């Protein structure tokens, strides 16, 4: 399996889309590209299973490695490889991008550029997940920022310029922090300069340097994954973005941060991670609860989902910060699960908005009658968000809770319990949103005339639902993919070589 294909295919699709003449051509190409990509990812998963099954149980290694010199003078390589966790994230990306293309089927404004940017973004995300060279990874991370700015600024709604600026600037700021941290890794880990992830994890950075550089890396990636208090780009960015961009943003982009926090910040500086873990957990707990409470007061469906994303990404950080084996597993599960769920939620909100032209909870109501499919979708996304068993949210949240409980110190216990409380708050706001926008008496006669979902929307929803249900009903399938990787990361984090 040639990993480079994963980002080359979308990149080529993107470029070819630029030469199309009409919406029909552009979207057909984009769809074709994403379907091919989905097959590619399916093939990747199959190949991964085949390759790793020979390695024995619990062994996690990066397979399909490729290495080429890129900037030899700076020791920067083109170096890619995947383990189970990255494969899972790549699968998530493929599903969300496909669904994103489908829900944007009828973009009328500059469709060519729209699909170009979408594919371009996905290329960045794929590249990010396969990179094993930190500089290469950073390169792809940056690649995935600028298109968002354009997507929101051009195709957005509401105060889109403000949101686009805010999002791009905050994410850029995050990248800047990340880069400082990466330079720390580059110069201070090991005897020679290196951006090689594998080598950097093997060598030990002096603890004082770790303590200095860890916050840069973690906060930098934290901005991407809505770490409190760097989360405020999330509500504005999501609410202004067009549906597909929201899906991408919440579904994948926020996961870049979580993945980075885990893979880069934590793994490269385990001692510092231990030292800072209590702060991470505290911030995560605040994000979880505070995001949930703030959601209760929102009236715009997109804001509701955006704030709930803050809360749900808090679980990712909570799992990461707890640093136990199950909690890391839970964090990864939560990344995948939240990606699918929030994408579905945004898709459903987009479908509602397209028909009713409002996203205000108070102006909706009773759409269940005319749009049973969209309503069911919305309902399922909501249920997934509040952690209903059988849907993916339950699996991941419970894993995070179980993992967090393994930390027996009183402070960690308290924060675990506090985070658990969010399941109630989540239920409150989700049911409020569902109760007043989906159920209830139809707001007006016009509400009885809406058309239910079209085929493209149905397929998009089915793609995401399939993911959610597969994780929710048969979690062992995903679990066997990510378990070895999580174990390995947990081992790396348990490494205490130098006393603090």
């Amino acid at each position, binding site marked *: 399996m040639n990993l480079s294909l994963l980002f080359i295919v979308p990149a080529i699709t993107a470029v070819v889309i630029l030469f199309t003449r009409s919406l029909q051509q552009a979207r057909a190409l984009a769809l074709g590209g994403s379907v091919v990509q989905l097959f590619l990812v399916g093939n990747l998963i199959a190949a991964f299973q085949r390759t790793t099954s020979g390695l024995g149980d619990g062994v996690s290694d990066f397979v399909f490695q490729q290495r080429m010199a890129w900037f030899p003078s700076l020791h920067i390589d083109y170096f890619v490889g995947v383990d189970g966790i990255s494969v899972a994230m790549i699968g998530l990306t493929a599903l969300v991008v496909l669904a994103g293309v489908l829900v944007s089927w009828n973009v009328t404004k500059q469709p060519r550029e729209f699909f170009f940017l979408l594919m371009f973004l996905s290329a960045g995300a794929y590249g990010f997940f396969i990179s094993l060279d930190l500089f290469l990874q950073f390169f792809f991370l940056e690649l995935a920022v600028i298109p968002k700015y354009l997507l929101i600024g051009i195709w957005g709604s509401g105060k889109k310029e403000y949101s686009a600026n*805010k999002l791009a*600037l*905050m994410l850029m700021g995050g990248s800047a922090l990340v880069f400082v941290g990466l330079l720390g890794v580059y110069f201070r880990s090991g005897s020679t300069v290196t951006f090689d992830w594998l080598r950097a994890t093997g060598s030990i950075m002096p603890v004082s340097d770790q303590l200095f550089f860890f916050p840069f890396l973690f906060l930098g990636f934290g901005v991407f994954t809505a770490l409190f*208090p760097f989360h*405020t*780009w999330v*509500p*504005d960015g999501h609410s202004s973005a067009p549906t597909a961009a929201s899906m991408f943003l919440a579904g994948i982009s926020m996961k870049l941060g979580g993945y980075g926090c885990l893979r880069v910040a934590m793994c490269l500086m385990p001692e510092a991670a231990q030292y800072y873990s209590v702060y991470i957990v505290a911030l995560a707990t605040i994000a979880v609860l*505070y995001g949930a*409470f*703030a959601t*209760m*007061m*929102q009236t715009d469906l997109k804001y509701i989902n955006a*704030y709930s994303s803050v809360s749900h990404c808090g679980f990712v950080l909570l799992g990461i910060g707890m640093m*136990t*084996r*199950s909690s*890391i*597993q839970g964090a990864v599960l939560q990344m995948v699960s939240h990606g699918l769920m929030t994408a579905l939620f945004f898709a459903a909100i987009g479908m509602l908005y397209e028909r009713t032209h409002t996203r205000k909870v108070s102006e909706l109501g*009773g759409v269940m*009658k005319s749009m049973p499919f969209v309503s069911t979708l919305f309902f399922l996304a909501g*249920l997934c968000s509040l*952690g*209903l*068993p*059988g849907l993916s949210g*339950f*699996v991941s949240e*419970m*894993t995070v*809770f*179980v*993992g967090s*409980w*393994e930390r*027996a110190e009183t402070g960690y216990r308290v924060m*675990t*319990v506090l985070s*658990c*409380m969010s*399941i*109630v708050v989540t*239920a*409150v706001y989700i*049911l*409020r949103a569902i*109760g*007043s926008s*989906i*159920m*209830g*008496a*139809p707001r007006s006669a016009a509400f009885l005339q809406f058309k239910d979902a079209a085929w493209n929307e149905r397929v998009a929803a089915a793609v995401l639902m399939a993911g959610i249900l597969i994780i929710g009903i048969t*979690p*062992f399938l995903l*679990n066997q993919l990510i*378990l070895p990787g999580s*174990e390995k990361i*947990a081992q790396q984090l348990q490494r205490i070589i130098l006393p603090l």
Partner: protein
Amino acid sequence: MNMFTQAVWIPLLPFLSFLLLGFFGKYLKGTTAGWLATVFLLGAAAISFNIAYEYFFLFGKDANGVYQTIVPLKMTWLQFAGGLSIDMGLLIDPIAVMMLVVVTFISLMVHLYSLGYMKGEERFSTYYAYLGLFTFSMLGLVLSVNLFQIYIFWELVGVSSFLLIGFYFDRASAIAAAKKAFIVTRFADLGFLIGILVLSSAAGTLDFQTLIQRLTDSTGEGLHTATATGFLGVSALTWGLLLIFMGGAGKSAMFPLHIWLPDAMEGPTPVSALIHAATMVVAGVYLVARLFGIFAFSAPGAMEVVAWVGAISSLFAAVIACTQTDIKRVLAYSTMSQIGYMMFALGVSGGSGEAVDGFTAANFHLFTHAMFKALLFLGAGMVIHAVHSNELKDMGGLRKQLPVTHLTFLIACLAIAGVPPFAGFFSKEAILHAAHLTHPAIYWIGIITAALTAFYMFRLYFGIFHGATSSHHGDSHHHGHEGDFFQKLPLILLGVASMTAGFIPFGNFVSFSGRPVELHTDLAFSILPVSLSLVGILIAAWFYRKPSEMPDKVAGFFGSVFTAARQKFYIDEIYLFITRKIIFKLIAAPAAWFDRSIIDGTVNTFGVAAQTGSESISDLQTGKVQSYAAWFVGATLLLIIVFIYFIH
């Protein structure tokens, strides 16, 4: 032993019906969807009865005549990296088999009954799909092998309850009730979840059998750590069990988490019969019974709490039930009261000796209660269809119009009142006996509750079927037929069950140790409760058989107590105060404000500062070449000076 793997079909058949109707229900015309679901459920019920027969009479016992716990199927569903795992499987033991029978039987009755009751509903097939989902979840709950499995299905029954309560989703009150039910039980489930975490981390397993074994083994390490560590002077184990009980109390509508149950009556009446009377609400009892070993052997403190919560709930609900006028609400409070009975029956029994009979008694009452309470609700559904109102004042003199309903309702009332030889008598006696042994105070509460129960049930009975025909609905005679055969059949079957269930030698089948026990029926002991019940019935007859002034006088006598009871002791208001005023106003609103003003404000301030800063710097950029030159020359000179004289 593997013959019990067929049990997997018991939950799967309703699930298939759910999938089928959920996806293709809209293409089915008329009552086809209902018949389809009923057939599926009939299959499930048949398998359940078969399993019950095989388990109780053929293969359940081991060589010593003790009922075994059989796990015919278990697979790892989710492996946690830390070592715990959530398993999915089937667990067959006496209480599970008993519950299988109850759930499938009542569900089948409700399926049949709804064919007529829900006919003509716009979302008929959706209704049956939801019923299927509920039945699936409830059966999955019953068959759980794993603490987390029970939690999973626990949540699923919660959501199906939400869907069914909110079935008439264009009614604001239905949505509110559905939300309330879900959120209140969810809050209780928070306790359940944390309880699971506490217990599992102490025992190192989530598997029921291993868990119970480890936490009751007084030499084991699990029990030692669980009791040695503690919080606020209470051991971790007791905390864990109390939190789990909190989950059970939420689902079973125990005081003070009961507030959702009366509102849940917004759902269609057959749903109330199935979910909010017979099956889901007893899940809490089932849960405590499942973990009974740990409660009884390792955490007597938690048992005490269970007993008192049950006792208080039963009395509390009985008092409120006497004052309510909506017949479904009366039944709802009655349900709460009866579940309180079961709960304290579990709570008062110890791990050994004669007191352990409380375990059997609780399950017995669960069984009989399911029969007569479902019957009461289905009967109430008939009545409501006949008069198109839930209010007692709109009813009266319906016994001629609804003869079958009348008769079966009377049977159910006698059963719940504990009049021999109806089913309730036997189970109640067993409970009171168990309470009498260890907790005299609770015994007296039970006695009073029993009398109140008799009173309010017959208040209902006389109010509906006797007395003056309500002028308000004098025209109700032309739709005065009682529904078709399939609506009456469940009433009759349940009526027969309510009459005869008491004669089942329940102790032979269900007991904590797995050995047969003899349930106590002692004439001398029975005189007091039975006579009190009869007094209650007589007072009700005196008050309500004919229109009379007595109820008002008595109400006046009790004054503010009556008003308070009528207002359900203001518990709802307290909850509203907490949610509206404290959670929304003092937590959520400030959080949202803080986010928009402080955090976002800080971000925006950075933005504004950068902008004004750059604007003020940009004033230097005049576009005038000479000013640039001036800066250039000045700066060059400065640099020269700096480099020559200050930096070498």
